[in-house]
């Protein structure tokens, strides 16, 4: 292993270019992962970023900046930039000073909730590590795990360990329902301990959507937020914390709690406000990458295929004449995409397929062709749950969803995903949607993105994919004809 440190704190690590082969002398027993976090996973060169959080953790574990610098000087191919040295020293110094401030005060929470994990439920090693990282870390923290890695499991285990009155915030009703089912299945809590939008202050665990929490009544008052604030939850779990719209951040972060846990699959936002998540909820205390979990067999491997669909005829003419906004819409609603999607469903007729899109009218048109149901913003809550359950149970092979189902819905049985159109160049949405089929069911999944060829969508798709590419995924780009030649 050879490490090239950069002034911005990035460490480029090459495993193949080891000319000195000197890593045998690793007597300090440190590893890069102890103080840096991988941010780009490539075969030749993996890129790490020096992580203040890990440095502080290391300092709390009794290591000194001298240890880290000594190790780094051993493995580095060039002098360590002075900025990097300063960061390492400053973070490790502050860790010892801030130790008292950050850890939870030993004052016990007001009420002790009678909850325990069911005995037969066992955490995987990385899930256990995530739980421990939060329990032993700062009072407020974020855990980042890819979809399908079991964020709900981790949240539940933390809840069961802390035994505190808890509020769980999730992005939508289906996700709330999922939390409820999960808590019932994994813990000793019973239905009467749970409060899903019921506003019953006697119940120790409440589950709500962000939307309901910050909803205003007719007088424009944030009544529910106020009531929750008075109930004084000791633990607040922010599920899919990165999806919170910016203006909701401050409101929800106002909830005072002894401990706050953020759960996220992708800490990336097009508005660049990832920092808000970290400052309002807390720092990342644990992170694991899809690629590692795939290698370890915890997640199904995924093939990503970008299918280029030509935009022709009237659509092309309209496209050429249209404004920038029109161009996006026309390219997204390219009618040829419906043919392609139909063909993909035919290719995978034995598998459960999830079709996702941004614009709803093409979704409905496709639904008619495929005789498959659609879930969009207008679908009733109960209907949504019924369809999800039916899809999970195998009664449905194709389910078509709008962006309401981007996140936080467990659809473990889907092995094929088709993305008809997306929200501009959103890297987060791309990762979320891929996450719908990232499940631990062993079978290789395929993620198709339909992109109108020679339109703005090509560039958008390129941007959307960049986050996943850095996570080590590769996209095959194929022409639409390839679908018809059999796969």
């Amino acid at each position, binding site marked *: 292993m050879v490490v090239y440190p950069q002034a911005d704190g990035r460490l480029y690590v090459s495993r193949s270019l080891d000319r000195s082969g000197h890593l045998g002398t690793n007597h300090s027993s440190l590893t890069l992962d102890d103080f840096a976090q991988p941010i780009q996973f490539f075969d030749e*060169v993996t890129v790490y970023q020096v992580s203040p959080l890990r440095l502080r953790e290391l300092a709390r574990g009794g290591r000194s*900046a001298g240890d880290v610098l000594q190790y780094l000087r051993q493995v580095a191919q060039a002098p360590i930039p002075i900025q990097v040295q300063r960061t390492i020293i400053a973070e490790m110094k502050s860790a010892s000073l801030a130790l008292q401030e950050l850890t939870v005060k030993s004052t016990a929470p007001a009420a002790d909730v009678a909850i325990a994990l069911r005995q037969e439920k066992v955490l995987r090693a990385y899930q256990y590590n995530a739980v421990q990282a939060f329990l032993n870390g700062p009072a407020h923290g974020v855990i980042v795990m890819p979809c399908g890695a079991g964020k709900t499991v981790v949240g539940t285990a933390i809840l069961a360990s802390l035994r505190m009155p808890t509020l769980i915030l999730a992005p939508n009703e289906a996700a709330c329902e999922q939390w409820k089912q999960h808590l019932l299945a994994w813990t000793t809590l019973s239905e009467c301990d749970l409060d899903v939008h019921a506003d019953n202050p006697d119940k120790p665990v409440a589950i709500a959507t962000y939307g309901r929490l910050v909803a205003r009544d007719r007088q424009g008052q944030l009544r529910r937020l106020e009531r929750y604030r008075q109930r004084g939850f000791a633990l607040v779990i922010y599920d899919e914390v990165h999806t919170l719209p910016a203006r909701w951040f401050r409101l929800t972060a106002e909830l005072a709690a002894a401990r706050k846990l953020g759960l996220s699959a992708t800490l990336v936002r097009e508005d660049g406000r990832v920092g808000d998540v970290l400052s309002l909820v807390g720092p990342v205390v644990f992170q694991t990458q899809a690629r590692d979990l795939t290698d370890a067999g915890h997640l199904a491997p995924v093939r990503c295929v970008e299918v280029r669909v030509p935009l022709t005829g009237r659509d092309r003419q309209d496209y050429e004449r249209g404004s920038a906004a029109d161009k996006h819409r026309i390219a997204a609603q390219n009618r040829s995409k419906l043919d392609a999607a139909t063909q993909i469903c035919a290719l995978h007729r034995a598998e459960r397929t999830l079709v996702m899109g941004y614009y709803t009218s093409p979704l409905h048109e496709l639904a008619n062709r495929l005789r498959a149901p659609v879930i969009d913003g207008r679908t009733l809550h109960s209907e949504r749950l019924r369809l999800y359950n039916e899809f999970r149970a195998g009664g449905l092979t194709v389910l078509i969803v709008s962006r309401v189902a981007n996140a936080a819905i467990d659809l473990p049985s889907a092995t094929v995903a088709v993305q008809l159109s997306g929200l501009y160049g959103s890297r987060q949405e791309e990762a979320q949607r891929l996450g719908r089929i990232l499940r631990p069911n062993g079978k290789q999944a395929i993620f198709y993105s339909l992109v109108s060829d020679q339109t703005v969508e090509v560039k958008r798709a390129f941007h959307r994919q960049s986050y996943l590419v850095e996570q080590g995924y*590769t996209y095959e780009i*194929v022409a639409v004809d*390839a679908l018809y*030649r059999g*796969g």
Partner: protein
Amino acid sequence: MRLSECLNHASISTLQAIAQNLHLSCTMYSKLDLVQSILESLRNPLSLAEQLDQWHEEWDVSLRRIALHRRNVFAKEEIEHLLASAGHDTVNGLQKALAQGWLFLQNDSSRRRFYIVPTDMQMALRDDFQRRWRARVEVRTDDPLVQMDEGMAALHDLHTFLQYVQQREVRLTASGAMYKRHVQQLMELFEIEESIELPQWRFGYGRRTYDYPDRLALLYDFAYDEGIVIERQDERLTVDPTRLSEFLTLGRKTQLRRLLRFYVRTYRRPIPRLHDIIETIRLLADAWTSNTSLYAICAPQIQAFYYDQPTDVWDQRIVKMLVHLGVARIGYDDDSGERWFQITKLGQELLTQDEADLPDELTYQQAALVVQPNFEIVVMVPDARMEAQIAEFAELKSSGALRVYRILDRTVERGLSLGRDFEAWRALLATRGMAPIPVNVDRMLAEWVGRGGIQAAGLGS
């Protein structure tokens, strides 16, 4: 020429004077006897030490300058001048030195007179100084926590600067300086950033000291001096491609050594003893040496230069610049504590080896770069000529231990519009890459250069 040879060439009267000075009890009329007795005496460590003590007392600064001098042969005026710095009047001083056995008069066939310090005597003088100084400097054996070591950053940033001038339209002000915008952009690209807020008075340290911060000024002046950058009449800065490619064919250490030489040449005007100071440092600071104690030894050679006090000259003009040049590194444990100074391995090489002997770690045909799936080109083995070609269709993103370029649609477009050879560029990535170009990158490149969109590939898994 060694001492024995000098003695053999010396006149009998010179030998007699030396023998008297050394209080030798030999026959004063036999040359052979004289030569042997003097040699015996000066080769005996004990009696030599005694003489050295006496010479130190007598010659002090002069002796130091002669010991550290690059040459051991001097013209008459030169040696008189050197001896005069110890306060002797010229005629008596010279006579006195010639009678002591470390300086000899040399007549050659052209009847020109030279004064020579035998090589073994110069070495002995140098060793003696080194021993005396070592007793006075404070060293440490453990490593300081923080170490400011810039390695070959100066060279990398010089290349970045030249690449920048080549790629962009760099306009100059009426006084011939680059606009601030350019300087700012350069600082963002440079491995080592300097503040571009300059103090009021700036002169003496090179041609463009007034316009740029110290390090950039040195790089700029060097490039100008080498004829690589040209300030054109129409207020534009350009690169002479022939000069540049000549320069880049040199080994990297050779290039850096030229820059170091240029530094000494330029800064010698305000700091006349710069060469001696660097030589002193080189002899002493092979271990981590306290800055204060090192300064105490060099201080007699350092004078104020206008507003620069001797300590400013030491800190800003010598130590800081040697760190920039990769010759030395500075270490400390906490911000307020003592600074420690050490000559780097690279520095030892640059200061002692001739150009031809400088080893260069670079072998040109080996794999040197990686194209990453996120469109970054990571240059693992630095090679300025290769990078100049990479930059035709990519732009520098960050520099440090390795340099990272990124490929964007607009950089490819720019390369095409300037008529650069895309196929040759792609071939470079393929042949010098440690791995094949990732498929997604290759596809996108094909699209950007308009080679007919996506080829219909099969969907086989």
